[in-house]
């Protein structure tokens, strides 16, 4: 039996410009060339006040998702899970409308609120929520109660095969590995032929290899079924690995949407958490943008030091902040040549302080920079204060953030 038996055979995707429902500030154009309000799309416009008074913001979003993977990106606690719960019907929005494939799940205006079991939404929870007392097979068959035994067996067989877990069918969730549990949770949600798939950080806990195999299987499934998939993550790597389109959620609002490259290359809002990892933070002025090469030239404020940085959406002349980790900077005692790194900056060693097994060097190169070295490197190079040195910084070690 083919997995795509009840699928959207013959669905058309009329081409045209996309008009994503939008209320956010920066809007990025959609260049996929598909229409957004197709009959198989998911359209969400909702407002929901958080029950938790500590969250002093409301969820207030509006977007459409076409068949395919739509990434929902944002840090923890911005309302990503609440949004998925609203679509699944586990949480009732205060106002708005949720429509999937021309079926209205929720509308406060028309007083519609379809019960959770009738929505046919596939939901893979962050903690997976596999039934611990049921075997893998029983877990997968849980959503197939309405089918007769033969059809149920057929479907189970197919999904077990396509997620490569037939050998686990009689095991309990506690007896299989984390990656296997993720596969079972995905299979359990997909076997019911959902009209929309909600994935709440489903692969967060997995290693990269397992992750990419599961993503491959998920893509293969979706090539046949073509449903909108909302994929929640707070990992930038996953955004680039998966995304056809990205929604960026912050404090309950959509602040950007577009392709991963468009959205993720925007300078990030500087927050305490993002600053925590950077020993070197400078205000910089954008001198030139090289769109063709994907880089920019920036000058560190109050100095003549120029840096080549990754390209972000910022005007020439505007002020940004750049963060460079002390461990990302190389140190040389002679001027290096023939390097791939684009930034080679001359400077003078001010101080060397040993902190446990790390040597913290401070270097004056127009601005003061902190560089972390190993003890062996210090000894091999014979480093001492007053010594002339060159700093080497790769373009992509310069992390740009929006200026304050």
């Amino acid at each position, binding site marked *: 039996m083919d997995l795509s038996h009840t699928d959207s055979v013959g669905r058309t995707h009329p081409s045209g410009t996309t008009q994503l429902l939008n209320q956010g500030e920066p809007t990025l154009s959609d260049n996929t060339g598909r229409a957004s309000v197709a009959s198989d799309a998911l359209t969400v416009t909702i407002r929901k006040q958080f029950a938790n008074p500590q969250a002093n913001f409301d969820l207030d979003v509006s977007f459409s998702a076409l068949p395919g993977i739509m990434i929902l990106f944002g840090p923890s606690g911005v309302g990503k899970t609440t949004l998925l*719960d609203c679509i*699944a*019907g*586990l949480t009732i929005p205060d106002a708005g409308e949720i429509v999937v494939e021309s079926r209205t799940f929720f509308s406060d205006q028309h007083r519609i609120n379809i019960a*959770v*079991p*009738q*929505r*046919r*939404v*596939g*939901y893979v*929870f962050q*903690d997976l*929520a*596999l*039934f*611990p*007392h049921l075997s893998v097979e029983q877990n997968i068959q*849980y*959503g197939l*109660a*309405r089918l007769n035994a033969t059809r149920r067996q057929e479907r189970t067989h197919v999904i077990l095969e396509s997620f490569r877990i037939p050998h686990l069918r009689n095991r309990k969730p506690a007896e299989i590995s984390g990656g296997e549990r993720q596969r079972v949770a995905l299979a*359990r*949600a997909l076997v*019911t032929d959902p009209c929309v798939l909600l994935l709440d950080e489903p692969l967060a806990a997995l290693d990269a290899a397992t992750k990419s195999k599961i993503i491959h299987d998920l893509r293969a499934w979706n090539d046949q079924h073509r449903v909108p998939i909302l994929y929640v993550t707070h990992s930038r790597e996953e955004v680039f690995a998966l995304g056809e389109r990205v929604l960026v959620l912050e404090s309950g609002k959509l602040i950007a949407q577009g392709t991963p490259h468009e959205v993720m290359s925007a300078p990030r809002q500087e927050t305490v958490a993002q600053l925590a990892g950077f020993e070197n933070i400078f205000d910089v002025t954008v001198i030139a943008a090289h769109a063709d090469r994907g880089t920019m030239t920036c000058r560190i404020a109050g100095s003549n030091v120029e840096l080549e940085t990754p390209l972000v959406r910022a005007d020439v002349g505007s002020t940004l902040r750049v963060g460079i980790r002390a461990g990302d900077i190389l140190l040389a005692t002679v001027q290096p040549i023939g390097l791939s790194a684009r930034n080679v900056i001359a400077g003078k060693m001010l101080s060397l302080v040993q902190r446990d097994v790390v040597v913290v060097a401070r270097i004056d190169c127009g601005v003061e920079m902190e560089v972390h070295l190993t003890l062996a490197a210090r000894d091999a190079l014979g480093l001492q204060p007053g010594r002339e040195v060159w700093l080497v910084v790769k373009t992509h070690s310069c992390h740009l953030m929006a200026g304050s």
Partner: protein
Amino acid sequence: MDWQAFWLSIRLAALVTAILLIAGLPAAYWIAYSRWRWKFLAEAVIALPIVLPPTVLGFYVLVALGSRSPLGRWWQAITGHTLAFTFEGLVIGSIIYSLPFAVQPFAASFAAVDARLLAASATLGASRARTFFRVILPMSVPGLITGIVLSFAHTMGEFGVVLMVGGNIPGVTRTVSIDIYDKVQAFDYAGANQTALVLLAISFAALTLVYGLNRRGWLNKWI
């Protein structure tokens, strides 16, 4: 050893436990999941027999079963005799008396089931009833056994309510604890001791079972 009293107690306890299992499940479900703001009042009423002196409870049950109450009159019209001082009357009194010992462990184990599992069940198309029987109930087995064992043991040993509602009619309302009391009144300490030991053993076995089952992982080997 008064075997007639012993079997009467067993019969009473088994019947009361069976009824509490059936009636206690919906009550416990409601307590575990209702969001009614006055729910705590109902919880307090159900828990009342834990703190109320059995004589007080027995007194009110006796009044409620008597021929002056609507329930007593209705029963009399149907069966031709009153509820007070009958085995049926004893059953009704015991159900009320042991209610919290069944409902509270049931409700606690229902409430302990991860809400995300219930959400998963619903998104997979399951009705509330199916979720209850396929997820909540199987995951609450230790709580169910605790409730069953506690209400059985508690009914086995009850004294005050039985004395008030049932009196001391051999083969009808004379339970083991009444038997012990009678024997002591008659200075038959040896006989009282024998019966008391049996009750002690039953109670100890019941509690051992409850605590053993609630040890982590122990039950998982069976279910």
